[in-house]
């Protein structure tokens, strides 16, 4: 009997049974074929509650093999509770190697960040997505949002961006800024900061997104156009971190966490823990490059040179 076979073992390799893994892989292939399109999938039961990273875990477990090297980050950190527990779980059920080093990993599961280090073509990034539907904020009915996607009717999304500009003087979207993938589907990039959004565009690596609670998978294949929604005269911007530098490493070209101290003061620290370690070891890895980061770098260099010339003047 199938049942006997199934329950004789404690669990299958990578926890999920093979037929369900096959289903998830087929849905992933569909998602890759239609960049940005949300594919419904089974979202099987896991030993953690839906909404706690099950979508990412489903993808990871469906694609992982014995030769894979697995890394998982939660808001940039390898050491936070969510990351540690999911890492232990994946290691227990697959016995594959795990790492903190971005460059060694073949599969990187993430919650709310893309690594600071540029990913290569053999790497896959798996996102844990809380809300896959970018239009949910403007349209509450699933039936209608599906129709809006089908007909590429994104007027309501645009009006909400216009409204944000009118009310607050800028497009007030921190995490999860809506993007248009391959000129067709508007996609929620999961709550990554705006800093990471340009790194989705024309990347070498494969991005997979899983929303376990909402039972949706989607993907951005390598070398795909991903453009943030912006107006002709009101443009998308990344976080600026004006005058902020990491108080551990002095680094300025990275996404920062702001830490508040008991005396009311605050300081910044690089958010990506592996990147911070590498910077402290003086082996700074190759970062992403995009027009926003290049502009920021130029601005930093300009500030540096003016400071230097001022310093020279005083002596």
């Amino acid at each position, binding site marked *: 009997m199938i049942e006997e076979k199934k329950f004789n073992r404690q669990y299958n390799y990578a926890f999920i049974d093979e037929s369900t893994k096959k289903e998830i892989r087929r849905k992933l292939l569909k998602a890759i074929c239609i960049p940005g399109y949300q594919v419904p999938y089974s979202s099987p039961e896991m030993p953690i509650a839906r909404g706690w990273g099950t979508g990412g875990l489903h993808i990871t477990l469906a694609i992982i093999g014995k030769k894979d090297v697995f890394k998982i980050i939660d808001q940039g950190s390898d050491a936070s509770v969510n990351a540690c527990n999911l890492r232990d779980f994946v290691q227990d059920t697959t016995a594959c190697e795990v790492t903190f080093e971005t460059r060694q990993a073949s599969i990187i599961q993430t919650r709310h960040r893309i690594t600071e280090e540029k990913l290569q073509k053999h790497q896959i990034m798996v996102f844990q997505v809380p809300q896959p539907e970018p239009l949910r904020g403007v349209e509450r009915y699933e039936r209608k949002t599906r129709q809006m996607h089908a007909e590429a009717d994104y007027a309501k999304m*645009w009006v909400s961006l216009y409204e944000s500009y009118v009310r607050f003087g800028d497009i007030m979207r921190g995490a999860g800024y809506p993007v248009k993938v391959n000129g067709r589907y508007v996609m929620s990039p999961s709550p990554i900061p705006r800093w990471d959004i340009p790194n989705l565009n024309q990347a070498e690596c494969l991005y997979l997104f899983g929303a376990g609670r909402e039972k949706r998978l989607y993907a951005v294949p390598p070398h795909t156009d991903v453009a943030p929604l912006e107006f002709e005269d009101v443009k998308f911007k990344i976080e600026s971190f004006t005058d902020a530098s990491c108080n551990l490493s002095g680094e300025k070209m990275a996404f920062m966490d702001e830490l508040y101290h008991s005396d009311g003061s605050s300081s910044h620290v690089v958010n990506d823990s592996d990147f911070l370690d590498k910077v402290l070891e003086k082996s700074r890895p190759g970062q992403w490059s995009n027009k926003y980061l290049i502009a920021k770098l130029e601005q930093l260099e300009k500030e540096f040179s003016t400071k230097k010339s001022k310093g020279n003047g005083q002596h």
Partner: protein
Amino acid sequence: MDNTNWLLKVEGLTKIYGEPDANTLNRTGSLFNSNQCPETGAIVACNNINFSLYPGEVLGIVGESGSGKSTIVKMLYFDFEPTSGSACLSVFKDGERNIFEETNQKKRFLRNHKMGMVYQNPRDGLNFRFTSGGNIAEKLLMAGNFNVGSIRERASSLLASTEVSIARMDETPAAFSGGMQQRVQISKAIANNPPLLFLDEVTTGLDVSVQAKVLDMIRKLQQELGIAMIVVSHDLSVIRMLTDRTLVMKDGHIVEQGLTDQILQDPQNTYTQLLVSSLL
């Protein structure tokens, strides 16, 4: 009038709710004083409606409530799907295609570029969670204008032409009076300079002085922009003030049509006579 230069040609437009049988259309209508089929209980909202609308013309549709007049414009604006019938627009594919058979994208294109609609209830035509400017922006964005500066310029000039204070452009319509909401709706409807505008009971529910203002404004816009309009109303004074030609409807049928003055002065059909004589 030249009969070939129509803007909109509607033929055999029919809308039935419920399950009709072969005799349903023959057993309902003004002669039977009912739009409900006695056998199947199906409701015939519109029965074989034919008319043409010419560029710049204002056509009135008058009738009692439930006679199917709103259903006609809502079908033409793609809010409801017709059971059968066709409509052609001369400004779309040379008027050779039945617009009801087009894809949803094409229908949305027609709604955004070639038509405007003003509903009786502003809540149907406006999104009360967006500002008035945002509501107008929606139409402009759908037509592919992605420049915030030019959107705001166009929205404020539209609101100025419909006499809504520009200072209140960034408030939601919920904060406005009924008359102002209606004027915001009109601004939205004409945002993309459509050749065709549908007005569905626009002044119902407004007080008399505001009614007069809104009607004045519609007449002014019509004369300035030369938009063809279909005005649906149960109010004969609105029809008399705005329209050139009128269709009189009863139980899903057109019972009489002709020049508005003629119909009001010399009604032929018994129902029209009743309607005109009950004018206060």
